[in-house]
Structures are given as structure tokens and as C-alpha cells.
């Protein structure tokens, strides 16, 4: 007997919808035969049989949603009982990412963590609608494209493919190929083309499939976009948004897993935004598109599928450059941005069980950095831990700590600590990757050290 398991069809897939079975009990299947269709967070994929034999039983009926990776979905009788057994879920080598007793990734954010504070920007009577970060970003672009014909989206696979991560889903259908433009794989070229179009008065949204690939285009982001207003004495602006996923995905290795927050946040002329939840993703992307300056908008692939409350209001635009206190506490201030905010909130909940009340500040915008909010918090808590996914040296945490020392030195009761990725390229092996990336446990350890 061989179990057919729910397959992982993308690096970040944890569950999916079994949309269709092409086989039924009693059928015999051969290797390579299409047996089912599965919808992931990115696409609908056909599943082929690996083993041969008679179908004994369909274990998960078609139409089932949220089927976890590695769940047995059907059972085959091996031919003469001789078919090689399928890998089992409890064999580490074959498990989906992040499930190998990995303390950092165990608390995957597939559901919304308890966020303690309602955003003051959200009207008290606004209805809250559960929305994924992915759809919030899409809605932001669609709303701004409806509002302003100068706004267009350009990048790899943004149109016909509906977005490599489905962020641009249905935009081609609504806006047509004039305004949703598939490019060749040519980051340097299309980033420069976007900046040129912006100089001429359009408002491009340039999507990088990931910011790792924007390394090819960084000359245009910095030399052509960030500096032109200044070099032209205020005559020429580059009103453009560069956006896409940034930071570590899952098991994709060093070249696809870098956090560029600190790189871009160092450059005058750019504004750099890195939201955590869906409401901020929407409100800040709309603000970024409207802002007349070049913006680097850093998304996180691991959050695309996560649902959060988004207020149902007509035009939800948030101010750029304002941090947000996501949890109040009196004992220690934890600063974080993007995915690390979720880990910081989880760490705060665990710390609370031990009587340590952490205040969690979501930076949201890295340039300009809202250090007033951080400084005010540290004046109350007297302790600081910064958390970021990128490397520590010259990083976002280094900047946060320097600003706090400059503005609140006398209030500090302990040296501030930085939590960050280990100082190595991100490894592929699941255990090494988990050791390298910062998460809940490292934040808790740092907090305990500063409050000791």
C-alpha cells in the first residue's frame, strides 16, 4: 500500500485546496498520469502520480480547502504489493519547509496574531474585513489605477501570468495591457525605463519578482531615481514605486533570500516602506503611489497569504514615516519591521506569561525613520531590543540603537541589543536556515538579557 501525500508545490506552500480528482477508487494509475488539481496560494497545479497501482481509496474529497502539505490524500495498492513506498511525513528529508522541529518557524503566521491595539488611523466605526496581504496590495494598486491614469504596473509576469505571487491578480483584466505591462527578464532595463517614464510625468509601479533581482537595477533606483531631483535643482522628479517581496522566503538559498532594508534606507531621496499587516500594506502602498518621490516598497513573501483585518473605508491612505505601537508594555521596547513584527508580538505574548511586558513598535517606514515614537517608548521602558531579518552590521537595528543613544541615552538602564540574521549568507539546509534566521526565541533571549 502506498499513500499519496498532499504535495508542496511552491517553496512557501503549507496548505492548499484539492480542487479536482481525475481518478476514483478502482482506477489503476501509472506514473506520470495526472491524478488531481491543486490550488496553491500562487496557482492551480496538476499533480502527477509517482507510483503505479490501483486506487484503493480517495482519502480527501475534491473541494477540500486548507489541506496541509503531507496529508495522505489517496491510497494506492502497490502492484503485487511491490511498489516503492512513498516517503512518509515523519521523515525529515521529505517534509515541507519549516516543519522539522524548527523552533523559529513553528509559529508560522497562517492566522492573524492577536494584535492588541487598534490603529488610531482606522475610524472607530469602520467595518473590518479579513484580507490577505496579497489582496490588500492588489486592491491598493487597483484603487490608485482607477483614480489616476498616469499610474501603471510594469514587471515580469505581472499581466498574463497574474503576478508571480498573484499580487497583480485580475489587474490585466480590468486595466488592459497598456497599463499592466509584462516585461522581458531585464531588471536593469525595465527599472531604467520606469524611471525615464517617471521623469516624463507618469507614475510607474515597477514590480521586481523579488528584490534580490533588483540588484541588477540598483543603479537606476539610486543613481537615476533617488538623486535626480537634487541634481536637477528640483526640476525633474522620479515619481515611482519599486515594489516586490524582500527578505528570506523559505529554503530558496542565499541568492533569493536577502533583506535589503538597510541598503535602501541609507539613501537620501528614497522613501523606504516595509509593512507588516494587510491594512498597512494597503494604506501605505496607496500612499506610496500618491507620493511624488521615489519609493522602495518592501513586501514579504511569507506574509502574502496571511489574513489580517483591513478597514472597509473608501480611501484608506496611511501617512508615510509614522511607526505604530502594536502592543503596549512597560518593561522593554522591541522595534521590528515587516515579518519580524509578527515574531515580536509572539515573543511579547510569551514574555507576558513570565511577567515581562514588552512594548512592540512596528517601524512601518524605514526612511524617514520615526525615531520620536521609539524614543518616547524607551523613555518609558528604559530598555531596547531591535529585531530585523537582515544582517546586523550597519543594519536597521544599528540605526535604531544609534538614534536611541543619541536622544535617550540617560534613560537607558541596559545596553540595547540587536536581533538579526546570523552573519552568513542564508543557507539552504532546513536546520541551518532556521539557525541563521532570527525569530521568536532569539527575541525572547535578547529581551531576557536586557531586563536581567
Amino acid at each position, binding site marked *: 500500500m502506498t499513500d499519496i501525500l498532499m504535495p508542496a508545490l511552491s517553496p512557501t506552500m503549507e496548505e492548499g485546496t484539492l480542487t479536482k480528482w481525475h481518478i476514483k477508487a478502482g482506477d489503476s494509475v501509472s506514473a506520470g498520469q495526472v491524478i488531481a488539481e491543486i490550488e496553491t496560494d500562487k496557482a492551480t497545479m496538476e499533480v502527477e502520480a509517482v507510483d503505479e497501482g490501483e486506487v484503493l481509496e480517495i482519502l480527501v474529497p475534491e473541494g477540500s480547502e486548507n489541506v496541509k502539505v503531507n496529508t495522505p490524500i489517496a491510497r494506492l495498492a502497490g502492484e503485487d504489493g511491490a511498489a516503492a513506498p512513498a516517503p512518509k511525513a515523519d521523515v525529515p528529508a521529505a517534509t515541507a519547509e519549516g516543519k522539522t522541529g524548527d523552533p523559529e518557524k513553528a509559529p508560522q503566521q497562517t492566522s492573524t496574531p492577536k494584535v492588541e491595539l487598534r490603529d488610531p488611523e482606522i475610524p472607530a466605526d469602520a467595518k473590518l474585513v479579513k484580507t490577505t496581504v496579497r489582496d490588500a496590495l492588489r486592491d491598493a494598486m487597483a484603487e490608485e489605477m482607477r483614480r489616476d491614469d498616469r499610474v501603471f504596473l510594469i514587471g515580469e509576469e505581472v499581466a498574463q501570468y497574474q503576478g508571480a505571487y498573484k499580487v497583480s491578480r485580475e489587474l490585466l483584466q480590468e486595466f488592459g495591457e497598456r497599463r499592466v505591462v509584462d516585461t522581458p527578464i531585464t531588471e536593469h532595463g525595465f527599472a531604467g525605463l520606469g524611471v525615464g517614464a517617471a521623469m516624463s510625468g507618469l507614475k510607474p509601479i515597477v514590480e521586481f519578482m523579488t528584490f534580490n533581482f533588483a540588484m541588477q537595477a540598483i543603479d537606476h533606483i539610486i543613481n537615476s531615481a533617488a538623486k535626480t531631483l537634487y541634481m536637477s*535643482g528640483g526640476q525633474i522628479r522620479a515619481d515611482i514605486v519599486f515594489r516586490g517581496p524582500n527578505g528570506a522566503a523559505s529554503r530558496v538559498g542565499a541568492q533569493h533570500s536577502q533583506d535589503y532594508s538597510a541598503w535602501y534606507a541609507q539613501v537620501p531621496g528614497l522613501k523606504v516602506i516595509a509593512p507588516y499587516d494587510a491594512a498597512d500594506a494597503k494604506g501605505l502602498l496607496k500612499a506610496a503611489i500618491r507620493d511624488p518621490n521615489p519609493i522602495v516598497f518592501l513586501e514579504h513573501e511569507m506574509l502574502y497569504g496571511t489574513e489580517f483585518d483591513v478597514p472597509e473605508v473608501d480611501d484608506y491612505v496611511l501617512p508615510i514615516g509614522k511607526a505604530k505601537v502594536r502592543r503596549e508594555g512597560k518593561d522593554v521596547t522591541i522595534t521590528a519591521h515587516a515579518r519580524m513584527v509578527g515574531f515580536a508580538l509572539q515573543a511579547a505574548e510569551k514574555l507576558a506569561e513570565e511577567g515581562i511586558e514588552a512594548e512592540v513598535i512596528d517601524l512601518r517606514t524605514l526612511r524617514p525613520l520615526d525615531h520620536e515614537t521609539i524614543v518616547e517608548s524607551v523613555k518609558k521602558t528604559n530598555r531596547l531590543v531591535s529585531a530585523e531579518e537582515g544582517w546586523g552590521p550597519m543594519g536597521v537595528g544599528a540605526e535604531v540603537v544609534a538614534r536611541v543613544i543619541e536622544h535617550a541615552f540617560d534613560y537607558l538602564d541596559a545596553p540595547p541589543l540587536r536581533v538579526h540574521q546570523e552573519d552568513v549568507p542564508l543557507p539552504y539546509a532546513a536546520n541551518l536556515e532556521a539557525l541563521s534566521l532570527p525569530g521568536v526565541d532569539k527575541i525572547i533571549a535578547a529581551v531576557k538579557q536586557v531586563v536581567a
Partner: protein
Amino acid sequence: MAKAPAKNAQTNAPDKIPNTPTASKEDLLRFYREMVLIRRFEERAGQLYGMGLIGGFCHLYIGQEAVAVGVQESVKQGHDKIITGYRDHGHMLAAGMDPKEVMAELTGRIGGSSKGKGGSMHMFDVPTGFYGGHGIVGAQVALGTGLAFAGKYRGDDSVAFVYFGDGASNQGQVYESFNMAQLWKLPAIYIIENNQYAMGTSIDRSSSTTELYMRGASFGIPGEQVDGMDVLAVRDATARAVKRAREGGGPYILEVKTYRYRGHSMSDPAKYRTKEEVDEVKKTRDPIDHIKLLLAAANATEEELKVIDNEIKAIVAESVQFAQESPEPDPSELYTDVYVEA
């Protein structure tokens, strides 16, 4: 040995149009005036550099005047877009920018076109459609392709004139841009000013193929080689390419064979070529001498040219005076123009 610019235009354009340039005396006088303005302006800029009034890098356009002046004849000012690299003074003057503002930018004064914050390589002027002035070799090709994209997006019939040199023609982003421009039939005129030296490296030493007008062939972009020392040849080749682009025919490459008389920048002694080579071009191919011959044939008198010469002398002297008298930017300008206030 002197590599004189090609006399006979070569082309891989689909239909060869005979090139028998003619121009009215009035047009010839205008071209003469614009070319002399660029030359006299650049000579004075070189002098001010030597006096320490201009700092940093300063790349002079002397010898290449016929290119910018010939191309400009096809530019609809205020409608079309022009973009170039760091050797940009000639293009700016041809585009119609105020010589006072250009010279004051060179001296780093508040009266400069970028308030003294850009310098020689970074000047811009929206009314004349001049979008820089870019210091990273090849960057202007992708940016200029974006200017063309914007024109097509808006549905007007504007054209982007994208200048770059033989050196930039080996940059990867040039080919990324060619691909998109032809794929989307963008109205981009790529003008390769082949002055035969990428800084100190001759084209033979830097380029596996030196027929730069063929560089779009693998994308299906037609191109032709033009005598860049002949303003009428440049004018006519550009006009054909622009007509095609305005009608939706897509991008076109003009390889304009020219020659720079001075070093790459002010600090370049130009040891990589012989004095004889430079002298030979000056003696036999000079673009201003060439138009003087055409003017003589059109019965222009020495007196008519003298009037223009004196007028240009006055304009350049005025720009130098302005560039020296305009104050340095106020220290408060340090912090302006970093962001547009939303």
C-alpha cells in the same frame, strides 16, 4: 593613422533613400551659428576649468558639434524629449538652453540650471525637453527608452532622442533597452555618437564588432551610419528616422561617426592617439569648416559670418560673466530638493 569618419553612409535600413543634402542659405547660417556657439562656449569652459572656476569633471564637445545641431532640426521643442550622457554641453545648447545657465552650472553657482547642485554632467531643462545629463555610462539609454515609452503611453506622437557613445554601446542595458523598444515599437531614436574613443580605449580595442549601426540587428532595429562631421547628413538621416518613429515604425539607430578634438575630460592628455591623427581630422574633416564651404557655395559673405561670430562672442562672454558673478548657492540649498513635499 587617422580613422576619418566615413564619407559614405552605410545602411541596413530596409529602403535606401539617396542622401543628397541641400539647405537654404538661411538654414546654413543657423547651423553655422549654433555650431560656432557650441565651439566657442566649450573653448571658454575649458579656459575656466584651467582657471579653477569649473571643478570636477568637464567633458568638452568640440569636434562633435554637427551631431547635436543636425539632430536638433527634427526636435519639436516642448513635445519631444532629449537625453544624453555626461558629454552634454553641446546637446543642451543645441536644445535651446540658456548658455548663461549652463555656464553658471559649470561654475557651481545658484544661477546654474540645477542651482549649482548638478554640475557639468547633471543638467536638465523641462521646457526644451532636455532630460539630462547622466553620469553613469549607458544609464541614459534605458531612461530614454522610458521617455519614449511615456510618449507612446500618452498616445502623443512625441519622440525620444537618446544619445550615447561608442563606449556606452557595449553596456548591457543598451541591449535590454533595444529589446523592449522594438518589442513595443517605442518612438526612440538612438544616436550613437561614435567618436572612436571610449575614454582612452579605441573602438578597435573595446568592441568585437565596430559597425555600431548594426548593433540593433538581432532585435530587428534598423540602423545606418551617418557622417557626423556633415550637419546636413545628420539632419537628413535624423529626419527620416523621426518620420518613421512618429508614424509608429518604432526605434531606429543612427551611428554618427564623429571625432572629439579634446581629451576625454580636462585631465586627459590623450596619449592614446597621435597628434597627427587629431590634426588630420581638424584639417580635413572639421564640421565648421565644412559648413563654411557650403555657405560660400550659397553666396554667404565673410561679413555675414563675421556678424554671427561677433554675436556668439558676446553671448559667450555674457555667459562667462554671469557664471562668475552669480553667487554660490546659499548654504540652505544643501537641504532642498532632496524630496518633493507631498
